[in-house]
């Protein structure tokens, strides 16, 4: 049984939000005598994460993802509940904890904008009080692994977003954190760079056993990086299981691509749960709701009418699965 690295029990956070009133006059009144209302960002969320696990923490905008991460890193004080990260209370033992965890906020840079990354490494070694010899060894190791040697001495503002993000992650690993929080680490990056960053993070988890806590809007991040997913919406947990289970449960649709023998002939399937997604000459893409109509039925219906040259059956991208989860939870609320 692996060790628990994060334990969260009924964690909640409410914000006091100033009620804004319409119109200028009312706004002025609000300035003098503001009215507040309580807004729950996170409500009674509980879960545990084992050491070395790769967890995707998902949810739509405003679901409470960032708020949860900020409570787990000690940035925010919760309104209720408990949390333990590496056996420490994040908001009470923030400093102690910060030596053992790392965080990358995709939109809040830790790098000094006008300085080359090498200077930020130096500064971080002071912030984390690293022993000089150990610091140098670790730095060189990270530089090599992340391939950031070539632009180590270029001012950060002149780096591309992908280069910057690699430096960003490398810097956050300097003090060998046991848990790393990645908040939207691939936002704004192109496909190739995203893939590279995912490989680096996977490698890190494999070799150093670092626990990964990731939030992302990118389905690829979840599929390629994580083995478990927690989905929250409206501040509440609504799914917590392995990524494959999530795919199975919400994977009610299949994408079927086929190449037909004859040219563009109108296809009249008229089957429930089948949608034509794309038609390009002999190439046809269908989306099939397998809970309504089986793939077999669809294919036999087509084959009765036409010649089939090629068929592939695929899972839809994670993006669709997550979107579907949100919409099904929204309708059940």
């Amino acid at each position, binding site marked *: 049984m692996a060790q628990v690295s994060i334990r969260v029990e009924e964690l909640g956070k409410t914000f006091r939000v100033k009620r804004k009133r319409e119109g200028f006059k009312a706004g002025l009144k609000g300035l003098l005598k503001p009215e507040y209302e309580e807004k729950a960002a996170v409500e009674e969320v509980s879960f545990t994460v084992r050491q070395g696990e790769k967890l995707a923490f998902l949810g739509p905008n405003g679901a409470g993802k960032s708020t949860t991460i900020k409570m787990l890193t000690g940035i925010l004080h919760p309104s209720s509940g408990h949390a333990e990260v590496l056996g420490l209370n994040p908001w009470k033992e923030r400093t102690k904890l910060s030596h053992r965890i790392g965080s990358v906020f995709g939109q*809040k840079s830790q790098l000094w904008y006008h300085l080359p990354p090498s200077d930020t490494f130096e500064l971080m070694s002071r912030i984390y009080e690293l022993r000089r010899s150990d610091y140098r060894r670790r730095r060189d190791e990270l530089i090599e692994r992340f391939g950031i040697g070539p632009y180590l001495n270029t001012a950060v503002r002149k780096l591309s977003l992908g280069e910057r993000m690699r430096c960003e992650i490398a810097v956050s690993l300097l003090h060998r954190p046991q848990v790393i929080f990645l908040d939207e680490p691939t936002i704004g990056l192109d496909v190739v760079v995203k893939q590279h960053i995912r490989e680096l993070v996977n490698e890190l988890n494999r070799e150093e056993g670092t626990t990964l806590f990731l939030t992302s809007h990118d389905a690829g991040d979840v599929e390629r990086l994580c083995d478990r997913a927690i989905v929250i919406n409206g501040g509440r947990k609504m799914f917590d299981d392995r990524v494959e289970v999530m795919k199975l449960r919400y994977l009610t649709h299949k994408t079927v691509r086929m190449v037909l023998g004859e040219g563009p002939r109108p296809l009249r399937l008229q089957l429930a749960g089948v949608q034509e997604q794309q038609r390009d000459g002999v190439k046809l893409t269908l989306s099939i709701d397998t809970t309504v109509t089986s793939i077999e039925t669809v294919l036999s219906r087509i084959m009765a009418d036409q010649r089939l040259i090629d068929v592939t059956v695929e899972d839809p991208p994670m993006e669709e699965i997550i979107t579907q989860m949100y919409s099904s939870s929204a309708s059940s609320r």
Partner: protein
Amino acid sequence: MSDYAMPGKSKRLLWFVWACWKSNLLGAMEFRLSFLLMAGTMLINDVVWIIFWGLYFRRFPVVNGWELQDVMMLWAVSAGGVGLMSTLFGNSSRIAGLVVSGQLDVYLSQPKPVLLHVLISRMSISAIGDVAFSLLVYGFYGDRSLIGLAKFGLALALATLIFIFFTVVVNCLAFWLGGTDGLSAQLFNALVTFTTYPTGIFRGAGKLLLFTVVPAGFISYLPIGLLRDADPLFMLGVVGVVGVLTVGGIWLFYTGLKRYTSGNMMGLRR
């Protein structure tokens, strides 16, 4: 491995402060021309002021006791204090903005004392001009003996501390009231403005104000109360005020931090 929890804590803290300052300066040096231009214009700006007030105070001896030299030292201490605050602790006057826009996250996710880390993470380049100006004025008008230098150093340190922690206090209002950047900035401006006039011109309620709500008097009387006459009662008052402001500012900041709501509570990002 980390040396955290090993002895020698304060030494490593100093190393960290030093590293921050060095990074600030290196960052400023990236734009050498603009650096010189900004520091230079600030210096010119200060010089224009002082030449003008020099003319004024030569024409009108303000109050009994305040001589031209005292007025010059008043400027040296005030500009020097503001300058040192803005160069070495340049984020002081930006705390309210950082709180409102949720930019304390990075400091909170790192192990160093949050207030200190915030304060030293920015350097106002133009303020270097203020510091240079202060030293120039001291060089021309100050007492350049060893004891005079020590006194001037002490006066600068005290003024700097009052500036920093008064600014911290007014900026911490943002934790409770929200967007107070404008108000905080104006209170800071008021303090700076008051410190550039001799305390001798104020009477009654005005004088009371200067030694209470806007503690400018504790800075602007330094040229007389420390540099010239070394008045023990006044010095006791200054040290007391510095103590109260420092402790109060730190306490207020950490109390406010518990109410910190970070930036994007609705998931809306700018």
